[in-house]
């Protein structure tokens, strides 16, 4: 097998921080994944290479889909739908297929993805590698709980794994951030829907106690639930939020004009309404503009409104209407801080919100949600409790130390940070937060004994190393003496 052609490119995650250069392989066919894997493994064995990792749609915020100086396999080309069973909702797809494509194709046929993140522009491979969660985690668990099997190309060969076929490798891959191999194909169990609409209950909550109380007592009655917290509010209004919860609408739930037109009621035609054309150097988001936005957004939310039909796109992916909105944060980019702490650690959530509001960083809304039980993935993020996620612009003096402090709080509460969002966690903190790491490394060493699977995230948090790798020899020409 010849090594595939590569193109050197500078890559970042969605947060546009810490760019690194890698040789990108466009895996237009699964055979190119095999070829890239063989070449990378050989190069690592010869101590001339820096390994490889897969990349999906680059929606992880940090450095997970980067591999400085090594190979990055762009898996978004593996975008074919392989087999479909419309009676059962089982579909087999290439790992590069986006959740948007799945929605466009299958919602009109009555099937929806089992789990969707806050953007539909993620690949199935990325969804597996991060074991992503949605607003329905408390009911349906995370993405990999709905994966029936997958094909994984590893340095020691190709494995077809599932919950019953080499479960250790399957679960290590769930949340394994691409470090167990490259997923080329996956079989998913979709969920049945009658329409592309949601029936949504919206309520305002006056403060953090109020919203947490509402979620603790009411979430079980809803399949989807999330609260958006206004992080600019302080004092007695700290944690003021809007809680939106709902479920898929049936045909009969919809207004007459839709209920009588099933094609329209099931239509799924996502539109990008606008695109941010360039990166304003200092960014456009500052406490002032964001404060105004948050105020507007809170006021516009109804105090309480029940059973209102909303289209899926608006309910699940409000931000996807604006292309490349990550540019709004300016040249230095931004990061997302997302953690989970057990149910009993509500006070930790409050303290963290307090500390973040104190520094008055421009953050749009923080998203608060309750997780249900986690799955067996040793590096899978979700565990029962509260998860909070918020975007923060990079550049504020002391942000690095502040977040280190918050890590300690999270750790002390028995919680952890989400690797798909992370871009700054320290290696020892990561280890302490993920006690499953040794189990993970054990499985990985079975399929990747020489450590050819490498990413910048892996290097940063101590899962991969390049020590012992050679440096390029200069092409030494005999020096001419004149």
């Amino acid at each position, binding site marked *: 097998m010849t090594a595939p052609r590569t193109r050197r490119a500078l890559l970042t995650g969605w947060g546009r921080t810490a760019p690194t250069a890698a040789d990108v392989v466009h895996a237009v066919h699964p055979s190119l994944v095999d070829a890239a894997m063989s070449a990378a493994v050989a190069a690592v064995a010869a101590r001339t290479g820096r390994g490889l990792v897969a990349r999906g749609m680059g929606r992880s915020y940090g450095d997970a889909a980067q591999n400085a100086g090594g190979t990055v396999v762009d898996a978004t080309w593996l975008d074919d739908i392989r087999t479909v069973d419309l009676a059962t909702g089982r579909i087999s797809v290439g790992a590069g297929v986006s959740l948007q494509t799945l929605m466009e194709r299958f919602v009109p046929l009555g099937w929806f993805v089992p789990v969707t993140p806050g953007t539909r522009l993620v690949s199935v491979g990325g969804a597996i590698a991060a074991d992503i969660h949605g607003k329905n985690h408390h009911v349906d668990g995370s993405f990999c709980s709905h994966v029936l099997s997958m094909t994984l190309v590893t340095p020691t060969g190709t494995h077809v794994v599932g919950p019953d076929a080499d479960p250790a490798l399957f679960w290590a891959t769930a949340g394994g951030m691409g470090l167990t191999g490259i997923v080329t194909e996956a079989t998913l169990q979709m969920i049945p829907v009658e329409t592309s609409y949601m029936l949504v209950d919206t309520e305002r909550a006056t403060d953090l106690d109020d919203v947490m109380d509402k979620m603790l007592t009411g979430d079980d009655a809803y399949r989807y639930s999330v609260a958006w917290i206004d992080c600019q509010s302080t004092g007695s209004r700290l944690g003021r939020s809007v809680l939106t919860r709902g479920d898929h609408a049936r045909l009969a739930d919809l207004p007459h004009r839709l209920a009588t037109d099933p094609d329209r009621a099931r239509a799924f035609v996502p539109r990008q309404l606008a695109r941010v054309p360039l990166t304003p150097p200092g960014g456009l988001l500052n406490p002032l503009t964001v404060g105004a936005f948050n105020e507007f957004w809170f006021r516009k939310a109804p105090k309480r409104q029940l059973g209102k039909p909303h289209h899926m796109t608006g309910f699940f992916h409000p931000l996807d209407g604006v292309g490349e909105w990550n540019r709004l944060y300016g040249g230095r980019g931004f990061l997302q801080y997302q953690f989970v702490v057990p149910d009993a650690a509500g006070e930790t959530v409050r303290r963290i919100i307090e500390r973040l509001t104190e520094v008055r960083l421009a953050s749009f809304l923080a998203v608060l949600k309750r997780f249900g039980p986690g799955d067996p993935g040793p590096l899978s993020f979700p565990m029962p409790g509260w998860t909070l996620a918020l975007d923060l612009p990079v550049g504020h003096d002391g942000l690095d130390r502040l977040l280190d402090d918050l890590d300690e709080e999270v750790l002390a509460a028995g919680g952890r940070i989400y690797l798909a969002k992370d871009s700054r966690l320290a290696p020892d903190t990561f280890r302490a937060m993920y006690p499953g790491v040794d189990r993970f490394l054990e499985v990985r060493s079975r399929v990747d004994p020489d450590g050819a699977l490498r990413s910048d995230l892996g290097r940063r948090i101590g899962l991969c190393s*390049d020590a*012992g790798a050679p440096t390029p020899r200069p092409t030494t020409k005999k020096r001419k003496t004149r």
Partner: protein
Amino acid sequence: MIDATGRPQSVLVLGGASEIAQAIVAGLVPGRCRTVILAGRPSERLDAAADAARAAGADMVETVAFDTTDLAGNPAVVEDVFTRFGDVDLVLAAAGALGDQAELESDPQAAAELITTNFTGLAAALLAAARCMRAQGYGRIVVISSVAGDRPRKANYIYGSTKSGLDAFAQGLGDSLVGSGVGVTVVRPGFVVGRMTEGMDPAPFSTTPEAVAEAVVKGISSGADVVYAPPVLRWVFAVMKQLPRAVWRRMPG
């Protein structure tokens, strides 16, 4: 790796015993920098710098022998560090000597040696570092130049010209590395009260190694191209460079 907030996890210092470099390392270790390689002329001072890095919390600290004037050996020293320690996130070039202008004027060979120390030898080491980092796909090179290089003065032009050369070299190197993931930061301190300037009268806007370090650590995290320390010197020297030559010539020693 360098994280999203610009914190490196490993550093190679060329001129590991430098006071300014030590202050920079002290500023980096509490962040994420747990691997510190100090390259320099073996001495108690170099060992003490290593101890200080350990005391600050770095867990992998080593010293390697490095003399900028060893033109043939320099690149290999740098390459060996990249090989043995894996990634090097940051290379900090701090080695340098001030020299005594009057003595250097009367000893051309000594002058040439100073130029080798401050410029030629470092350039060789930095080219090796740049090649390693380019292959590594990322990294930051920090070069300590000086405002003395912004416009060399009559009283100090041999040292000043080494810094002009080094500064120009670093800028060009930075431009050549655009798109590679590697960035170059040029640092231009003013008069820094310390070992190098012992016994001299502080110039206006004099500063300390700690203050320089603070500005440099900030510049590293933001990926700055140029850092002046203190920052006001950026504007002072913008003006100084415009002074007519006849006026500049009269600048006091």
